[in-house]
């Protein structure tokens, strides 16, 4: 069996993985990047709107404290506040660094990086390139990896002396030595051959879980592999009940249902209307946000040119609010012909401006739906977009509870609390990707000459080949479709106790069926086989989502319970933590208390605002902290 030794193995070549690998290599570690797709094609490539960083280029009042506050508000104060703090402080440096590696962001008049408005962000904050920011980011990081390889070639005569990309290579198990990580087991998609990585440190950067849902903006890679790998290796997942349904996915034609319509459409002036032509978002401003959003169309419209004297239009509320509002309008019979609502930019900006600012949206609608967005409104509806939950990590080092395991990007949990603000993922990838690379490098250093031994290869091998060897079992595609429908219908945007409980029963049955799938054909590039392997991960993750969703008896961010519609301060202090046995059985979800915010951070907020979120006890703590600091 093919075998390689590395200091650090990074699983994932999206923004988080590449930034982690760059850091590990820059710290002198021999680093492998392993990814399921070709190099440069990870899901990050799809990101459109931008990367949030309080550089203050467009409004000089912006700074990390404002960004921190917006992030905590967006997450309904459930965020790991230390992560939100580091993120807000470090994002500008991470964006500027990209520029020094060749990125070409759109510019302001004075030649700086331009920044655009986005939901939940108080000031224009998203560094962007039209509506293809993710592509710019991944290409820049990819090209940085190549630049490092060229440096290594100069010195060692080998491009791959310190950093090597294993593309179209899927990890199916993390390997351990006792409690600690010792490597990873994978197969090459191209040949079906197996490969073992010997490495004391593994960084998970595998992205999200959207492929467990039918209607999703996510790519095929999003089967929750990293979430599952972490669980199976003994690490914990937190916040799995929180899933972001992006308010604006395409709804028609059916084959493109779910594909994202970027929030920039609204950031740049687009408005939402129901079948009666009403800008319904004005009817859905929740109490906690009442004083921050415009109450009339006139004020909302003025805001685009004069932000100092007007409040934002409610189309730019955080995503969870907008998604629920659209859902309600459609349910109330005020939807568009194809079951969404109207998103109109055609009556708001000149055609040329739309094509310049939103080129890929223009292209996407024209090519896929025969709709010219400069002339007519789009039809949009909610789509499963992002998982806030993920591997529980230490904020500063990105370390999981298993020694040697690190996680960054969408696969990690905590940073975004119960709801992520648009643009905060790309910056999260950079900030915590770098920290994970540094954390892994420091961990390797701390081991000195000790190296953990790889174990469990035979078991991993047997598990992986099973679907190929079984005869006459289930069609994996059918199990997958049933899972997607179940999660979409029963654990989707609006949840009820009996439905979630039903979903759990279905998942339980599907788990059994998944152990009996057959993949006809050989080992070479066999998608049926690959799916059969991915099913284990999707099912495990779905079980976590459903179990946590059943437990949390309140509504907050990306978790809406029809039977518990209110947000409860008591629940704000509770995180739900998932764990499982190494064979994926016995998924447990337990409550854990959220650590109180540091005094200097909590006092960045008004008491009046906090009183909407915190318990009386916590407010007393706040008063004490405020007194001490004054």
């Amino acid at each position: 069996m093919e075998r390689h030794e590395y200091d650090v193995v990074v699983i994932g070549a999206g923004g988080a993985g590449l930034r982690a690998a760059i850091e590990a290599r820059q710290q002198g570690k021999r680093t492998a990047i392993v990814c399921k797709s070709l190099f440069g094609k990870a899901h990050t490539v799809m990101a459109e709107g931008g990367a949030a960083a309080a550089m203050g280029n467009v409004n000089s009042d912006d700074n990390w404290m404002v960004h921190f506050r917006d992030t905590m508000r967006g997450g309904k104060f459930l965020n790991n506040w230390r992560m939100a703090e580091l993120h807000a402080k470090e994002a500008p440096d991470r964006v500027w660094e990209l520029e020094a590696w060749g990125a070409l962001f759109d510019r302001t008049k004075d030649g700086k990086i331009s920044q655009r408005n986005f939901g939940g962000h108080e000031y224009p904050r998203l560094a962007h390139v039209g509506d293809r920011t993710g592509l710019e980011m991944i290409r820049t990081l990819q090209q940085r990896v190549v630049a490092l390889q060229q440096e290594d070639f100069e010195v060692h005569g080998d491009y791959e002396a310190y950093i090597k990309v294993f593309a179209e290579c899927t990890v199916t198990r993390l390997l351990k030595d006792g409690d600690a990580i010792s490597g990873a087991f994978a197969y090459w998609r191209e040949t079906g051959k197996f490969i073992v990585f010997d490495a004391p440190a593994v960084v998970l950067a595998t992205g999200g879980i959207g492929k467990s849902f039918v209607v999703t903006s996510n790519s095929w890679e999003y089967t929750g592999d990293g979430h599952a790998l972490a669980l199976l290796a003994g690490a914990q997942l937190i916040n799995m009940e929180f899933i972001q349904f992006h308010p604006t996915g395409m709804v028609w034609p059916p084959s493109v249902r779910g594909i994202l319509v970027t929030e920039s459409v609204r950031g740049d002036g687009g408005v939402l209307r129901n079948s009666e032509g009403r800008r319904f978002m004005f009817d859905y401003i929740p109490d906690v946000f009442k004083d921050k959003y415009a109450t009339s169309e006139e004020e909302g419209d003025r805001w685009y040119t004069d932000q100092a004297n007007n409040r934002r239009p409610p189309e730019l509320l955080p995503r969870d609010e907008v998604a629920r509002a659209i859902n309600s309008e459609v349910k109330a019979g005020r939807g568009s012909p194809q079951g969404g609502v109207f998103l109109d930019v055609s009556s708001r900006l000149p055609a040329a401006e739309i094509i310049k600012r939103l080129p890929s949206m223009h292209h996407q609608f024209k090519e896929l739906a025969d709709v010219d967005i400069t002339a007519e409104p789009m039809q949009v509806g909610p789509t499963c977009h992002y998982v806030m939950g993920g591997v529980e990590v230490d904020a500063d080092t990105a370390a999981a509870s298993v020694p040697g395991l690190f996680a960054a990007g969408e696969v990690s949990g905590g940073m975004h609390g119960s709801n992520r603000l648009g643009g905060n993922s790309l910056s999260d990838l950079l900030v915590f990707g770098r920290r994970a690379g540094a954390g892994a490098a420091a961990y390797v250093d701390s081991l000195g000459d000790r190296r953990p031994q790889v174990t469990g290869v035979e078991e991993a091998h047997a598990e992986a080949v099973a679907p190929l060897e079984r005869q006459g079992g289930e069609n994996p595609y059918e199990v997958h479709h049933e899972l997607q429908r179940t999660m979409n219908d029963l654990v989707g945007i609006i949840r009820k106790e009996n439905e979630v409980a039903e979903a759990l029963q279905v998942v339980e049955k599907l788990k059994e069926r998944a152990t009996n799938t057959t993949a006809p054909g050989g080992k070479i590039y066999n998608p049926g086989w690959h799916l059969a392997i991915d099913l284990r991960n999707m099912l495990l993750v779905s079980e976590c989502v459903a179990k946590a969703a059943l437990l949390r008896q309140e509504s907050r961010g990306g978790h809406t319970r029809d039977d518990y519609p209110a947000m409860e301060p008591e629940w704000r202090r509770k995180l739900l933590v998932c764990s499982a046995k190494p064979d994926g059985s016995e998924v447990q979800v337990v409550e854990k208390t959220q650590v109180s915010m540091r005094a200097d951070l909590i006092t960045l907020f008004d008491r009046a605002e906090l009183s909407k979120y915190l318990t009386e006890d916590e407010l007393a703590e706040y008063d004490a902290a405020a007194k001490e600091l004054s």
Partner: protein
Amino acid sequence: MSYKGKFRVWRGEGGEGRLEDFTVEVNEGEVVLDVIHRLQATQAPDLAVRWNCKAGKCGSCSMEINGKPRLGCMTRMSTFTEDETITVTPMRTFPVIKDLVTDVSYNYQKAREIPSFTPPKDVKPGEYRMQQIDVERSQEFRKCIECFMCNNVCHVIRDHEENKTHFAGPRFLMRIAELDMHPYDVADRKDSAQEDHGLGYCNITKCCTEVCPEHIKITDNALIPMKERVVDRKYDPLVWLGNKIFRR
């Protein structure tokens, strides 16, 4: 509004293969990739195809549809008649791994041979100042999603395997142009464009521009200006230097 469509799909591996006929359901609004996925789910579970975003953004699902290089995810079934047989084959310029999946490593090798972005040593991150108009030229080329269809269709390598060693293909010649037009890049790229990466082989037939799903004007905006720069440079290096400084 669904119908039974006729598909012929190239199947095979290890240098051998054949076109296989399928009859498969096609629904309103679908793209070719949807139909390939239905084939996988119902008739040919091991049919190999690369794909990722299914939204025209990642450039994974390049294939030849009725002989034309296209992204499977952006080719709508409504562009064909219902009784038409649709033939789907892998990109021809690259060796086939299996079915519709080809070995595109040539492209990654070429990417690595082009010297990276080289900024002046004294500019720190955060200090970059560039005007929109000056970044727009390179931005156009950075729209590239690396579907490699331009390289697939370029006859310099499509019909001449032997040129692959010394010709980077439109994709990476455009990358050189992109860096050369970057306001902060200080490397001299003209000689190597011509001598190491084969710019001279391009005889501007514009096949690359025609297939680009991002509608990048590869020939007009990248390759021809790059050729001009190479020529200018041969006659007057001072002009080149002046241009570079002026553009800042």
